[in-house]
């Protein structure tokens, strides 16, 4: 049986939906951040899959994925820093309580 792109894409989609679900339903900011990483990884997978199936001789998709992973690491560090600071100020990381800056 030949491996088709769809076999890779469906797990990627499931991963993405899990991330989205977690992002919407979890109230803890750390958990939301983990969900966000999950979505990001699903997108990275898509890059690799399309590169592999559409342009087999080239490497652009791979390179983008590496970049995205590096940037995601930096972004996570930043997000963690923000979350820690928020926790210091309001003693809470429940996202429902953090609506002081809405207007």
């Amino acid at each position, binding site marked *: 049986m030949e491996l088709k792109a769809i076999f890779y894409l469906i797990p990627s989609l499931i991963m993405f939906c899990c991330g989205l679900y977690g*992002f919407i*339903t979890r109230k803890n900011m750390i958990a939301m951040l983990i969900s966000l990483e999950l979505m990001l990884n699903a997108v990275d997978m898509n890059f690799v899959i399309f590169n592999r199936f559409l342009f087999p001789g080239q490497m652009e998709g791979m390179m983008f994925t590496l970049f995205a992973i590096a940037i995601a690491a930096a972004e996570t560090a930043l997000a963690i820093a923000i979350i820690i600071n928020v926790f210091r100020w309001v003693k809470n990381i429940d996202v*429902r309580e*953090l609506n*002081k800056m*809405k207007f």
Partner: protein
Amino acid sequence: MSPIIPLLILAIPLTMFLFLGIAGCKLSHKTAGVLGTLGMGTTLVLAYLTAFTYFFDPQFINEAGERIQQVLFDQTWLHLYDNLSINLGFLIDPISAMMLVVITTISFMVHLYSLGYMHGEKGFQRYYAFLSLFSFSMLGLVVATNIFQMYIFWELVGASSYLLIGFFYTKPSAVSASKKAFIVTRFADLGFLMGILVLSYYTGTFDFIRMTSDPTWVLASTGGATFMGCSVLTWALVLIFTGGMGKSAMMPLHIWLPDAMEGPTPVSALIHAATMVVAGVFLVARMFPVYMMEEAATTIVVVIGALTAFYAAIVACTQIDIKRVLAFSTISQIAFMMVSLGVASAGGGQVEHHGLGYMASMFHLFTHAMFKALLFLGAGALIHAVHSNDYTAMGGLRKYMPITHWTFLIGCLAIAGIPPFSGFFSKDEILSACYAWSPFVGVWMTMVAALTAFYMFRLYFLVFHWEEHKCEHHTPHDAPITMSLPLIFLAAVSIVAGFIPFGHFVTWNREAYDIHLDWTIAGSSILIAVLAIAFAWKMYYRKNDLPAKFRKALPNLWDWCLHRFYWDELYIFITHKIIFGLVCRPLAWFDRHIIDGTMDAFASITNRASDAIKPLQSGQVQMYVWVYVIGTLLLGAITVICLI
């Protein structure tokens, strides 16, 4: 004649105004007063020089025996188009030369008198600055070479009159009087401006000499155009006359003049008796040949003049404030001049006839300026002595103030028309002109002349005879020399001015002309004046109850006269009830509710809309994500459906 002297006549008062206005606060009262008076004195000498040169130098008389009108200088002041520019210049002709003499004489006397009268007042320097400004504007007005220059100075005169009436600006009555004077005359000036525009639109010129030297050309240039059934020229002349009515306090627009008496008394003498208020007469005289072409316009002049003369005279019989008596007397006398000009120009083409009315009017202007200034300055001396404007605070003053008494008596005799005082001659000429036009107007004006004699002597007897008033503070005494000197000088002029052969100097066609006294008219007017004085003597010489009885016998007439026929109330009724109530209030309602309401509606719709959508911005990040995801899915679905 070189243009230096005329230029100086205008420049000295202007410089004096600027100097005293700017540097006045650094000067002492005395310096400022003396400086202002000296400046006016120099102007007086120069103006006399100009007038005498003009009247006596044969170079100003041409071969036909007419005096020429000469423009001494004329400078383009405002160039708008090639065929529209406004000039400022200096025109000398018989009436402007005469007015130069009148204005500078009265102004100098008032400057001198004010040194005593305004002594120690706060703002003394400002007072002299304003007097100089007024003199400058008035001189500029009479020597105007074109009607627009006249209009400019006309407004300046109005502004300086406003400043001087409101000189005591801490007194609310003075402030409201100055506003009233300014607004009423300004309202009339709107008519003047429209008249100028209509006239110059058709003739294409502002120039006086161009218009008056050939009035048939003016008539022809309108090309028979009509508006609402009257010819355009009639409209223009009536509108111009409206401006004159405002300044000269003719009937519907007279209401400002009695109130203007709130100003200092010398100012009343200068502006509201002798010079500014005759500007309207001067204007009609200046445009006289054009007025001659339009019977309808001149008839209006006569009718308004005659009604005003009678009205003001009868009101003057009941006033308590001596300055108001004089104010109404001024209105009445100016109306005499207007009537005289009207009957002269509506004369039907007889040269003899034109000459009489025009000359009489100018003659009366001259003599009236002298004796009315005298009466006002006399009234000022009285007010200075007893510190009140009402005759009830006076009475029996002849013993204490002999100079004021005698000069005031001379003034009264002059205005009443008793020979040989000056008023007799000029008023008699006016009456002759009126009889020649229409016997009815003649009889009417004779009646007014009788009333004049009555109210002036009523005032005289009440102030100087009647019952001696008890003064608590001090005995009244004659004024200081600076105030007495002008009184004596003006009294002397009032005695002799009647003998000036005025017809040789000022006539409508500038030809010399001999005055003949018509003794039937003169005799009857003397007789009637003497009777009126006798009646006044009977009623007011000694304290008695005749005036009170008289008052009881005619209560309605008395009340109406005392309240000036309710003109002020009528004005208040019209402005407050009709204009404010029926026009302005609905307009204000419309503005507040319809126009503002529309704008408010926009604002409140925006507000409500924002309130309605504000909860969407909840601050719940996950809520946003929900919306975002659903929106994306919807958009995706729509795209897919569209592509299929």
